[in-house]
């Protein structure tokens, strides 16, 4: 079966490549190898290949067809890869959509990636699905985002522009998984848990997810307003008794988010700010210990470029819990207790050398309340226009085992990527 698919892909390529010279059709992609190895030998339970967190060879094909003087177009991006950890071959249909473009509106239907908001690796009003496991194991940044099967309507006007998205199929975040990462579990004695995913909107119309963004450029500011209605993308928990449960199940609680962002040049750099109110619709009272309380999330960021291709970015981010006393009153004994205000400070340093063929970068997350870190140093080199090599590390550290990054502190890893683009 898989062999037939490969054959079809090769045949399709042979047909399409000669046509790719026509300016309307373009065919590109890459071949890539990507490995990530845990630096210590304390492997999590269920680790299939010892220290190997990620090992894969991957081919990506991207085809786009936008005929001249036509209002329609199409784009497809699909990966085919071999995974050494699962010892498996698989397709990964990354994106694929049809475009209809007009003067005052645009319509895009299909699987598409969205990135909203002004944070750098901190997402408030971007509630679209993400693959945090991919990010933590050192896959290229584009793999942090998961395509959402959706319909997007763009409305363009002089006053304000809008992106309105409907998503009939719920797609959760991919979180660090059993066998690849260590993580904190308050109930290790109950390994079997049902995971209940919301039915599609075709089965239950009320499950339709909506995301709206209004934006414009006002007096040197890029301003956006956002609204989202749908679900948390990381699961909440149901238990017969949270203090000594015998049955646990996981589900995705309902969520609405309302927010704003603004960005402009200031102080010799770029200043960004964003706010989002997370309305936890299934736990408005804040009493349910299995569901996140409502929160205000906010960030402020500043980036500045210095001579000789050196750039610095810093951000402060906070999550303020709204019913903290209810949270405290209902917190099960096994759970890690969070602070009322959970904060991150991030730093990004980027420096380019040798006609921008060499790039050294550092990104760090630090939480002063959870006392944990994620530090990502990376070096990349463009051997040629087509050949890129990347080596980097994800360094997890923390005072406790039950915090966001502290739970992965045995999973610090070194990753290598080599990509040939065509």
């Amino acid at each position, binding site marked *: 079966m898989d062999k037939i698919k490969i054959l079809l892909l090769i045949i399709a390529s042979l047909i399409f490549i000669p046509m790719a010279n026509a300016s309307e059709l373009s065919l590109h992609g890459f071949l890539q190898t990507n490995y990530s190895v845990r630096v210590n030998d304390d492997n999590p339970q269920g680790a299939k290949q010892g220290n190997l967190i990620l090992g894969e060879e991957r081919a990506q094909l991207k085809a786009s067809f936008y005929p001249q003087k036509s209002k329609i177009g199409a784009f497809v991006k699909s990966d085919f890869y071999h995974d050494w950890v699962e010892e498996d071959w698989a397709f990964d249909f990354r994106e694929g959509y049809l475009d209809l473009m007009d003067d005052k509106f645009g319509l895009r239907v299909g699987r598409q*990636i969205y990135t909203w908001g002004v944070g750098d690796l901190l997402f408030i009003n971007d509630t679209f699905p993400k693959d945090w496991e991919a990010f933590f194991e050192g896959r290229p940044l584009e793999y942090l985002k998961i395509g959402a099967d959706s319909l997007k309507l763009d409305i363009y006007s002089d006053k304000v522009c809008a992106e309105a998205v409907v998503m009939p199929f719920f797609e959760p975040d991919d979180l660090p998984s059993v066998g690849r990462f260590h993580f904190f579990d308050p109930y290790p004695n109950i390994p079997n848990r049902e995971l209940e995913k919301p039915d599609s909107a075709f089965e239950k119309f009320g499950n339709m997810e909506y995301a709206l963004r209004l934006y414009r450029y006002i007096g040197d500011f*890029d301003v956006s307003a956002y609204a989202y209605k749908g679900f948390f993308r990381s699961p909440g928990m149901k238990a017969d008794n949270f203090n000594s449960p015998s049955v646990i199940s996981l589900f995705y609680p309902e969520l609405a988010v309302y927010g704003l962002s603004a960005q402009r040049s200031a102080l010799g750099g*770029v200043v*960004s700010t964003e706010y989002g109110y997370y309305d936890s619709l299934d736990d408005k009272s804040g009493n349910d210990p299995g569901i996140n309380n409502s929160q205000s999330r906010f960030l402020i960021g500043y*980036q500045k470029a210095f001579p*000789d291709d050196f750039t610095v970015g810093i951000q402060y981010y906070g999550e303020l819990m709204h019913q903290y006393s209810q949270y405290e009153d209902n917190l099960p004994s096994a759970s890690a207790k969070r602070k009322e205000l959970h904060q991150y400070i991030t730093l990004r340093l980027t420096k380019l050398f040798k*006609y921008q063929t060499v790039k050294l970068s550092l990104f760090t997350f630090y939480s002063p309340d959870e006392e944990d870190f994620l530090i990502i140093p990376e070096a990349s080199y463009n051997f040629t226009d*087509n050949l890129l090599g990347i080596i980097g590390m994800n360094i997890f550290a923390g005072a406790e085992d039950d915090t966001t990054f502290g739970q992965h502190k045995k999973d610090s890893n070194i990753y290598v990527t080599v990509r040939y*683009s065509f």
Partner: protein
Amino acid sequence: MRISKILFFLSLSVALNPIVTLAVAENNLTAKEIIAKSRLAFYYAGDDGRAKISMELINKAGQKRIRELTMLRKDYEEGGEQKYFTYFHKPSDVKDTTFMVYKYPDRDDDRWLFIPSINLVKRIAANDKYASFVGSDFTYEDVSGRKPDEDNHTLLKEEKLSGKDCFVIESIPKGSSEYTKRISWIDEANFLPLKEEFYDKQNELYRQFEAQETKDINGILTVTKRVMKNIKTGHRTEVVFQDIEYNLGIEDSIFSERYLRRPPLEWIR
């Protein structure tokens, strides 16, 4: 050491004074006016413009990297505010990336970058203006121009370069700059820069610009082939402008987030 340098410059400027006065009398133009006219001819041709630009980045060993892009430009004021929209065709790993700049005469640019693989429009801090443009030997300032009042200009002489009468002008930065001295050969007939030499702190030539081909595009003379060489590293960048058009009536709305995300196909092909 420093005093002797100052004395040297003083004596130089005294020595040059008569020549400058002579030139002004002949052409009715000061060195600064020539530089200002040259900037308008080179960076503000037409009310707007489009070109497909191929850049070859060539290192000392002869290895080539290619940058192919379409650039749209709209002027809002002659010598003043401009907007740029750039779409990358090559290399393949940056294909479909777009880059937009609002350029202001008296403050930092506003810049936006669209990264197609994650569908992200990102506002980026204005680079140091001496940073390399897309890894080439051209700086951002070389690509978008420098205000004439940032340097003190002196007309050194007039001479022929490849058979063309040129003003030869020395420009010394008033503040800190990437170079300490620039010498420009400016075509007297059309004010296009035909050659520029950039000198470093040791007063050594380290970068050299040359216009290798000039064409008449709908009545506007345009440098269509240009080279920037780094004398010290042996690296050079050869640039060819093709499909050049001026006064297209590019709408203001093109320079917006909408078109960063969905490049205007009628303009970028």
